[in-house]
């Protein structure tokens, strides 16, 4: 680390137009640092066309093949024949770099950004592997040819977005819910916890309930036309005949319905639901793409309760492992696993972020549960009220960091990359 004092005039002074890319498991945010919202949010799920198309265009050129092979952005939402939908991230880390690189290239192209002139800041989860880091830097420097790059932990970025150097970040994403203690802007790895009981899990819970109620989950693209029916009446619609639409695409579109349901209907009860306590939730009407509409009351609570007690809401044919923890339990676990000295700071600065945390009443519940579990500590939860701030917390944090004048010394330049090599950077120096 450098020990030289930063020059006073750098503060807020130099704008280097840093590009910030936050690759989440469901959405990828791209934008310039210094802005408070990402310029572009594209779905991380991208379509992969079947191979025969590729072979046909193989002789023309390599780039067109690539672009045609992957359908990113809006075109991934088109019911193209034989298009498989990919989920490039598993467990929050990139598994399919090809797809991710395509997404990055696509979105940077959309921004009309010349990557050769902009430093690139990438976020990564704190459980990211060395190989992945290396690959990310490789893409940045070799393929995108950025002048400088940096990897920031998304938990740190989320904490920065909330303006905190010391925080306990509860990030409820779509694939992973993680609790990460951040002290002095550095992640404490040992006590960090993560689980799969996050947004996608909640979607599955919702699907379970909807299927058990016998509701037709025909996605919007399959519906040619429909008639308005009274609430509770069977839907009247005609299906559109589309050739060779893959299952993965249909699943994605169904999950869009479930996400909508999650956003508009789900609610977390302020106290844990037990057989005795069945919380009160006012009935709300939800209209499905088929035109069928019905009311949901208790299901709104019970589905989201699964985030807090996954062991009590198993899926058919699946067993919930003993280690399954709800969100509040994870937070408490993490605090208890941390050093005594930092516990009070962590409990006092719980930052809740991630799109999955937008379920109504979630932050209140976490606050209540943690307060109850840790009576000796003063628990204070900081959850941005703004929806955009919550969804893109990590990106905003990256934007904050990238716009700092004192940060510019921390960039890894292309020259450093070429001189020292990726292994050295990843294993020894910066991004260990």
């Amino acid at each position, binding site marked *: 680390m450098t020990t030289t004092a*930063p020059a006073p005039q750098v*503060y*807020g002074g130099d704008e280097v137009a840093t590009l910030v890319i936050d690759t989440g498991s469901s959405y990828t945010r791209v934008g310039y640092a210094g802005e408070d919202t990402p310029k572009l949010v594209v779905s991380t799920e991208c379509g992969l066309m079947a191979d025969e198309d590729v072979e046909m265009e193989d002789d023309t050129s390599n780039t067109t093949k690539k672009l045609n092979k992957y359908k990113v952005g809006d075109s991934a939402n088109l019911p193209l024949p034989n298009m498989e939908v990919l989920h490039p991230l598993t467990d929050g880390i990139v598994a399919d770099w090809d797809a991710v690189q395509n997404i990055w290239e696509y979105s940077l192209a959309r921004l009309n950004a010349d990557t050769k002139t902009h430093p690139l800041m990438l976020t990564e989860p704190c459980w990211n592997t060395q190989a992945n880091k290396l690959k990310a830097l490789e893409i940045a420097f070799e393929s995108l040819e950025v002048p400088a790059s940096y990897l920031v932990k998304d938990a740190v970025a989320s904490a920065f977005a909330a303006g905190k150097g010391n925080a306990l970040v509860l990030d409820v994403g779509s694939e992973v819910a993680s609790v990460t203690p951040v002290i002095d802007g550095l992640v404490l790895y040992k006590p960090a916890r993560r689980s799969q009981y996050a947004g996608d899990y909640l979607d599955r819970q919702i699907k379970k309930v909807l299927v058990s109620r016998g509701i037709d989950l025909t996605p919007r693209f399959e519906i040619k036309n429909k008639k308005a029916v009274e609430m509770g009446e069977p839907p009247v619609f005609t299906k559109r005949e589309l050739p060779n639409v893959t299952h993965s695409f249909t699943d994605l579109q169904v999950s869009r319905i479930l996400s909508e349901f999650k956003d508009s209907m789900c609610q977390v009860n302020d106290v844990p639901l037990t057989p005795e306590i069945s919380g009160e939730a006012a009935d709300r009407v939800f209209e499905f793409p088929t035109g069928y509409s019905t009311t949901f009351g208790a299901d709104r609570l019970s589905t989201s309760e699964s985030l807090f007690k996954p062991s009590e809401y198993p899926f058919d044919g699946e067993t919930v492992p003993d280690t399954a923890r709800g969100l509040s339990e994870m937070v408490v676990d993490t605090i208890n696993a941390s050093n005594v000295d930092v516990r009070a700071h962590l409990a006092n600065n719980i930052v809740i972020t991630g799109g999955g945390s937008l379920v109504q009443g979630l932050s209140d519940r976490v606050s209540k549960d943690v307060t109850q579990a840790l009576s000796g500590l003063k628990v204070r939860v900081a959850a941005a009220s703004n929806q955009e701030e919550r969804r893109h917390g990590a990106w905003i944090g990256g934007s904050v960091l990238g716009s700092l004048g004192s940060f510019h010394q921390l960039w890894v330049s292309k020259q450093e990359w070429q001189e020292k090599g990726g292994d050295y950077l990843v294993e020894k120096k910066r991004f260990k």
Partner: protein
Amino acid sequence: MMDPRQETCGDIVSTRKRRLEELYYVSLHPRYPQGLDAKQKLKQFQDQFDLTQNRLFDENKLPKAVEEPKPVPTLQTSTPDAGSSPELKRRRTSSIAQLSPTFSRTSLKTNEQQLQEMLLFLVPSNIPEPTTETKSLAELYYTTQTLPLSKLIPSAHKTLTTDSYHLALLEGKLAVAHARIEELKRAGKWGPRQPKRFQDPIRRKTHWDHVLDEMEWMSTDFREERKFKQAMACEIAFSVLEYHKYGKEACCVKTKPIKFLPEEINESEDTESKMDIDTSMPPPSINPVEVTNISAADSVTVVDYDTLLSQPRTLSSTEESEDKPEEPSTDSEEVVGGEVPKRPAAPKLPESSPFKLYASVDKLDPLSKALFDNLPVTTPPGSAVNALQVPYSDPLDNSKLAPVTHLLAAPPEQDDWWSVCLEDSPADEDPLPLRSNTRSTLFNSETMRRHVVIKAPQPPQTKYLDFRTPTMWLLADDSQLLRLVKEYSYNWDIVSAHMLPQKTYGFTANIERRTSWQCFERWFQLNPTFSLTDLRGPYAQAAQQWMAAAAKAQAQSKRRISPLGVSNESIQRGHRKLRWASMFDGIRKSMRKRETTPRPNPQPPRKSQLSESNKKDIASPLDLCKMKFEQDKNLAKAYAQQRMMPGQMPGQMPPVPSNIPANRQFPGQRPPPPQTAAQIQAHTQAQARAAAAASGHMQQRMAGVGMNRMPGQMNDQHQMMQFDRQRQLMEQQKMLQQQQQQQFMRTQGQVPPQPGQVQGQVNQNVQGAQVAAGQAGMAQRPAGQIPQGQMPAQQGQVPPGQAGNQAQMMRPNMRMRPGGPQAAAPNEHLNALIRQLQNQNPALSLEAATKLAHVQVQRFVQKQQRVARQAQGQTPPQGQMRPGQPQGQPSPQMRSGSSTPMNMQSPQLMNVQLQQQQQQRSASPGQSPAQQHAMLMRMNQQQQQQQQQQQNQGQTQGQNQGQGPSE
């Protein structure tokens, strides 16, 4: 039983846990006052708890105030200086302990009135609320040692939960911890505070620290920028709305059309107009130093109110809205940024701006202004050039002490949150000056009190001195005593009256006795400066003597005699024990008293016996059951006998014409001895018949006239016989009544029937039932051919019960529709008839059978009418004759004599009858009404049963008869 125990267990656990936390916080926040003279205070504190001299740390000596309250300039505050009296200190701590330090804004509003009388403090929010109940670890240790749960649990009577065992375990752990603490204390290693944590060597701020600082500043900037953007977007949206609503004239500023200058000057003009546009959009770079200058100059300030109120640190909308330093403007209303200032004439709608984006400092009220002035301003971090010299201050290192246990963590020190702490205004301070003001010189205490003579109350006799138990005085009692003594100027009686505990339920433990003398004694103890010689009053001498004697006795005996002051800590240890002891004493005393007092002769409770005998009168359910059983048995017997008789018939039956009813076909045979059921029936009917007999031959003649057609009636339709017979019986009954009444009325003048007479008749009935029955039977017989008194043997031997039954049978009908027995009977019997016909001739269809039956009935009715017409000469038409409507005024006795239904008889008579029945049945005399009622009920049942029997018999007879001609 386990529930309260669990509750207490839970309480113990929670208090103990709480205590642990508290101990820790006490150790964390050494509460010696901080401030300018902190060093001096520290020295004081260290003197007080000089640990080097191996003095144990006494927590009670620790000042318990949470922290020196920080005054807020605009609020009513109290700044108690450290040198204030200990009493005041105590008051403050206690009230703080009682009040919850955190007060929400709403509760503040609701308690506005109380708020006037309260003091406000701001206390750092990281300091936990004081617990209401505190126990020292030593005390906990004591209780756990004296009554360890681990020993209590095995002897528990009821279910134990895991929690109980956990609790016992926890107790053990606490005991170990306490033992260790004691050990450390003995070794001189245990202080009031934890050992200092290891301090890292001082390090300078590193680059990363600067990054973090800047990050904090920048993220605040981001947040405020977002807010401002949203507000501006809203403002613009409303402006667009306004434009469309009110038109261009009202909303837009008139501008001159742009005059384009010649080419060469155009460049400068362009920059000017650009400048104009630029003002609307804040450039990203901000120079906050200048902003602070502006706010200090009080010229124009833009305040985001929400930000201002919510968090003091985030006053940064100021910076964003101002792009460059502006000269102090003349117009305070003028606001910088946005298009808003450019349209001064625009009508400002109240709904047009949901956000208060701009505010003028001049228009703030003084409170807000004062707050505003004191608000910190966000400045970029590390602006100092000598950043290298700034030592790094780790927020985590702020707490100087290490946590006691791994279960607890140090509260964050850097915390801008403050809790509002309320405290009762000194209530006991105010009255004093008030009192001195209002008091007249006559009662002015200061002058008076000096001359108040203290008169001793009457002391108890010295002989009781040896048996004395010391009274116990809690601290609260003592203070109350002192207060009362002052208030009532040494009037010991009044003081003692006020000192009495509130709820004793008739028992006052010795140790809690508060007689006037004991009050005096304790007061004297509390005032060692007071000398006994100052005592005045009649008992002064005695009091002095007593005191001397008491002192002597105390010196001699090991036992304590004089009143005992008890501190708060030892209440549980000593006080309660003594209290129990004194309670036991009291119990023993009262037992002794009871033993010695002469026991009054125990009077056997008469009343209950009486009630017993009364109870015997009323039949118990068992009795009733027995009676019912007997009744049923008799009934069954009678029934069996009745059943037997038809069985005997074939053997004894002479070859008689088959048209004669079967039940009259036992010539020369005596009827069976009257059985109970039959007897009752006979009896009730016999009354009527006895009366009929008494009414002389007239009726017999009449009956004869009515019946003279009888033999001729025996036509080929045999099945009609039974029916016929019943009808006849009924008719006869009717006629009997009529005649009886008529005759009675005629003879009333000469022979008024006396009650005794009737009674006699009735009694006679018992013996002469047969005779009466015979008479009645004779009356039913076709008497026309038979000379009077010359009864055919077979007729005379008609069983009375049967005759009665036959008469009785029609009774319900008569009762129901007294006017029309004819109308009722055919319908009822028509069905039976049809059934019979069908039984006999299965080939007959239902309609045919019905037709046949109708024909028969019609024929019968015609015959009947004929008979009636013949009898018409003497009897009035039947419609006029109703049993319930006798002409004239028949006496009850007479009515009883007649065959009026039972339920119309007078209760007296019924009683009489019942008694007679009971006598007959040799039942116990003196029946209760309930029994009588039961009897009545039974009688009715029997009647119905017999009626059924009769019908059955009739049917069998009819069948027998019907079979006759068919053969």
